[in-house]
């Protein structure tokens, strides 16, 4: 009875919470309309924002995937001390405020002579590059910010692979690359899926990174929704963008679950 009593509070809150999220879907003006969604898809300016958001999220996810494997391998398979040290080094930046990290990237990527990167390039005799306020700045920043979200589930998945399987492949003459490609990689797919889902969702719904690194030239859904609601006060359109963002995140999560399900089913069929 005690537990049922203390459950009323959280459940009450959560029920209210689920009700809150229904609110953005309109019902503000009274009349049901799809005009806001059509506007998001039909007006070039806004459609470009959607496409840019998807492209940046995709590149960030792919980049994070490549960078995450070496780290995850060391955490899961390296000597315990080193694995622990790398874990701390991977998680530590995660607890540093995103605004601060975006600011750090602004210092590094700064255009002209003030940026660290351009200073280093001119030292090497290479021309200055203009990265800040382009999509690449957002991608680089997002990769650094969200990489831990890829490394941790991946390390957990690799840790669950029996090392004997890899040893067996190696004993049978497989090269390191072949063992990785044929054994480690396929067996780590569940962790990779979780990581990709997280990185993609977080990038697609971020605000600080496109605001500070993309500027007014590279808009994403997060900056567009902020502008529509806090500057233009167009609540219905803002809410439609927010809902579109949720749909993108949900689609990517559902796609991952469907993928896992299909793998599971094909395994079951093989077994039968």
């Amino acid at each position, binding site marked *: 009875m005690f537990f049922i009593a203390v459950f009323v509070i959280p459940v009450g809150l959560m029920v209210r919470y689920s009700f809150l999220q229904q609110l953005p879907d309109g019902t503000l003006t009274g009349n049901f309309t799809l005009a806001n969604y059509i506007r998001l898809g039909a007006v070039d300016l806004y459609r470009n924002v959607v496409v840019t958001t998807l492209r940046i999220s995709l590149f960030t996810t792919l980049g994070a995937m490549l960078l995450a494997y070496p780290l995850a391998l060391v955490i899961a398979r390296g000597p315990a001390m080193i694995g622990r040290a790398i874990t701390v080094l991977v998680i*530590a930046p995660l607890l540093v405020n*995103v605004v601060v990290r975006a600011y750090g990237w602004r210092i590094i990527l700064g255009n002209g002579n003030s940026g660290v990167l351009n200073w280093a390039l001119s030292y090497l005799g290479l021309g200055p590059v203009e990265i800040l306020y382009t999509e690449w700045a957002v991608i680089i920043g997002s990769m650094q910010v969200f990489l831990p979200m890829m490394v941790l589930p991946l390390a957990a998945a690799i840790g669950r692979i029996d090392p004997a399987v890899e040893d067996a492949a190696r004993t049978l003459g497989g090269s390191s690359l072949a063992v990785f490609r044929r054994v480690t990689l396929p067996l780590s797919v569940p962790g990779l899926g979780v990581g990709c889902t997280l990185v993609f969702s977080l990038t697609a719904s971020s605000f600080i990174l496109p605001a*500070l690194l993309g500027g007014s030239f590279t808009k994403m859904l997060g900056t567009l929704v902020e502008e529509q609601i806090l500057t233009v006060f167009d609540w219905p359109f803002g809410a439609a963008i927010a809902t579109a963002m949720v749909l993108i995140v949900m689609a990517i999560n559902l796609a991952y679950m469907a993928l896992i399900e299909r793998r599971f089913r094909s395994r079951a069929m093989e077994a039968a």
Partner: protein
Amino acid sequence: MSENGLGRAAPLIYTLTGLIVLFLLLPLIFPIVLSISDTPFITFPPKGFTLQWYGKVLQDADFTSSFGFSVLLSTTAACGAVLLGTPTAVGLVRLSFPGKGFIQALVLSPLIFPSLVTGIALLRLFSSIGSNDAFLNLWIGHVLVTTPYVVRTVSASLVVVDPGLEEAARTLGAGRFTAFWRITRPQIMPGLVAGALFAFVTSFDNYAVSMWLFDASHVPLPMMMLSLISRMFDPGIAAIASLMIFFSLFMVLLLERLAGLRRAMSF
């Protein structure tokens, strides 16, 4: 060659790992490097050495009041998350009732639901019910997004606790609450501490909910930092960034000492 578990590719993997860790640390290193520059504007490479920017920032009323406000908000939000999350975790792990999976998904959903949208939904609700108290609004938002972390870490440590012990205490005459407090609570303490600290850090860093709910007299640190970046051009801003980095590193060490980082992340 498998004693290190990485095979012959080990040197290559270690080199790559070093480079990638460097990449992760880059945006944390340079604000610190620039904050000691003895120039009236931000420049690289820094010239001279001075700590005057730290002195200036620590006397800056905008920064100190905002820091104080963030500490207050995050501490109270973490307390709220623990008070709300712990009973929820106990209920979800120990009891079976219809709709349990649904409740569990609901409780954890703020973790994957874009918090930017959570903030918008809350702003919409607060303005339609006329709730103008920015502190209360921020507090509710922060409790909402931090509670799932507490539920997750407490659940993780609760599943390894033997419920028989609490039952034994009950048989010996302890009340339900006493049995929980004296028997189960000490055993889930690491999960509780990890959850509370993580809730604090998450709330302290949160901007996605705060950006919709703050007002001019209640400005959390990330929002203050964001506005300073666009109107402050001396190394003072780098000093603020460095102070926040030091503060985070302190939290990292605290988490690692008290609970273990990986447990706190629940991976």
